[in-house]
């Protein structure tokens, strides 16, 4: 690891650590202004630790997923949700809400309950996984994943899922539509499901190891297909790994926190600014950057209350991250696939 990469990882880790401390100490302000930092009682500390755990896992998963997809698609604008995962999750969650309303006492309601999918989280995850499978099938040409076909398939499938979600929402009773919208805005659960958190942590750890070991292959794969294959990269296998790994990470984050589109897009670029373009260093950096972004966003929203409770996390990440990203975009030169630093 070069000195620049080491300094960059240290910088991002410090940013993450500061965010975690801030989130643990910051007191939620209700109808009041200003920051209040205090050591919480044990019960409240447990809730804050739970929120930090959720944000670390979902942010890290999104950061790595974004990096892998940008490498897979050779496209700096790629994000976990470009491939329709968010739209698929949204459709899954909305369909279950619609089914619960329409067939609550019927066979379908019983079936959903028996299968354990009468829940937005599980249905959302299933929706994103189904879309992942569909986009994977559509994004292949001549027996292998084709980046351009994959992006176009993802965009079209995303649009179809979006339209079906709107249709399903229009069929929901007005009283239920709010629940659907809240799910779409994302959440940072203070009491994450232990099983889900463990599964996400294991998946994240596994993918960090796999992606780190593939770091040099990811660098070589940033050349053309012919060049990458002639350097010795098995693009066929690498692309399946990237696609399945990135999709599983994004689905896990959807299961934990709902759709949070912005983090997976910004975290890899933020990492490139401080680390450079080599993937072996970018893998841990993107995980740390994604986790830091989400922890900070969750900390900041504790002190913003417009009278309707805390600001939804998805709104805040987009409101903060969007302008920051545009600022960076204007101050640096974007080269195909990355940043010129």
């Amino acid at each position, binding site marked *: 690891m070069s000195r620049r990469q080491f300094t960059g990882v240290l910088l991002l880790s410090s940013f993450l650590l500061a965010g975690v401390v801030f989130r643990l100490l910051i007191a939620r302000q209700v109808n009041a202004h200003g920051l209040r930092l205090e050591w919480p009682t044990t019960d409240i500390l447990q809730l804050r630790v739970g929120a930090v755990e959720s944000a670390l896992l979902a942010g890290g998963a999104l950061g790595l997923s974004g990096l892998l997809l940008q490498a897979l698609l050779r496209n700096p604008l790629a994000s976990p949700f470009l491939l329709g995962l968010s739209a698929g999750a949204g459709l899954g969650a909305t369909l279950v809400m619609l089914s619960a309303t329409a067939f609550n006492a019927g066979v379908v309601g019983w079936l959903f309950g028996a299968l354990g999918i009468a829940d937005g989280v599980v249905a959302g995850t299933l929706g994103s996984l189904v879309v992942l499978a569909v986009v994977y099938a559509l994004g292949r040409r001549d027996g292998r994943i084709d980046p351009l076909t994959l992006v176009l398939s993802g965009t079209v499938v995303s649009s179809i899922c979006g339209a079906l979600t709107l249709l399903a929402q229009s069929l929901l009773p007005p009283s239920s539509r709010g629940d659907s919208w809240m799910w779409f805005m994302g959440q940072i659960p203070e009491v994450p499901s232990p099983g889900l958190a463990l599964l996400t942590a294991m998946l994240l750890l596994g993918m960090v190891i796999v992606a780190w070991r593939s770091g040099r292959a990811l660098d070589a794969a940033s050349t053309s297909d*012919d060049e990458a294959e002639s*350097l010795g990269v098995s693009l066929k296998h690498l692309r399946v790994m990237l696609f399945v790994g990135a999709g599983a990470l994004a689905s896990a984050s959807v299961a934990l926190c709902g759709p949070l589109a912005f983090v997976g897009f910004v975290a890899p670029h933020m990492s490139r600014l401080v680390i450079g373009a080599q993937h072996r260093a970018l893998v841990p950096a993107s995980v740390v950057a994604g986790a830091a972004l989400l922890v900070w966003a969750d900390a900041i929203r504790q002190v913003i209350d417009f009278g309707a409770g805390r600001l939804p996390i998805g709104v805040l990440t987009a409101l903060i991250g969007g302008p920051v990203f545009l600022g960076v975009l204007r101050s640096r030169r974007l080269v195909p*696939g990355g940043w010129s630093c």
Partner: protein
Amino acid sequence: MLTIDAVSFHYRGVRALEAVTVAGAPGKLIALVGRNGSGKSTLLRLAAGLLSSTRGSVRWSGLDLRTLSPQQRARSISYVSQRPQLSIALSVVESIRLGLFSAQSDGLARQRVTDSCVELGLDGLADRPFHELSAGEQQRCLIARALVQHRSGGLLVLDEPFSNLDPAEASRVARVLRARALGGGLVLVAMHDLTLADQIADQVWLLERGALLASGPPSQVLTTSRLCEVFSCEFARGPHGITLCALADRAR
């Protein structure tokens, strides 16, 4: 030994190569010439194992390239593409180091990177971003990367490596490629500069419309009558090699 045996290749039903049979021995520099669309790039990609032939077989050192994994192929075959592409912001030296992907990155390998930079005149550009280089400099980077990957006795395949180079750099690259051939490697180069092909190649393979029209020493293959037939323009062979007649008239 590179053996191309009755190879045909069709792109989605359109014929690109038909029943090409030819062979090249290590220690030679072979120039592949022909008109645009004659099948040169397809033949090079087949020789590098990047395409599988529709019919026939391509063998290197007796092994059918279709049976080798990319990693196995990369240990003995290196390839320079016609169009450089790099979608991340790497420096010149980082992009050249990609040639070590299939090798151990030890001290000797790192020395190969330094040597290749010097050989191709890139030592002063090592820390510059790849995407900020001129087309000719990028081309030399790709050649340097292939040289880093190239092992003694291996096959070096280059698709129009001279296309963006000025005469001084073309001459430097030609010298480097000749040296690799003399070192025991087989160098297969697609090129349009017939004068250069005549000067540096041990053999010339002439393709027309996907078929091999002739192969052999440059003086036997690059005859003025054959070139006139293939390229539909007049050529003259003088003391300085082959020239297009329009240019020869002007020189006179």
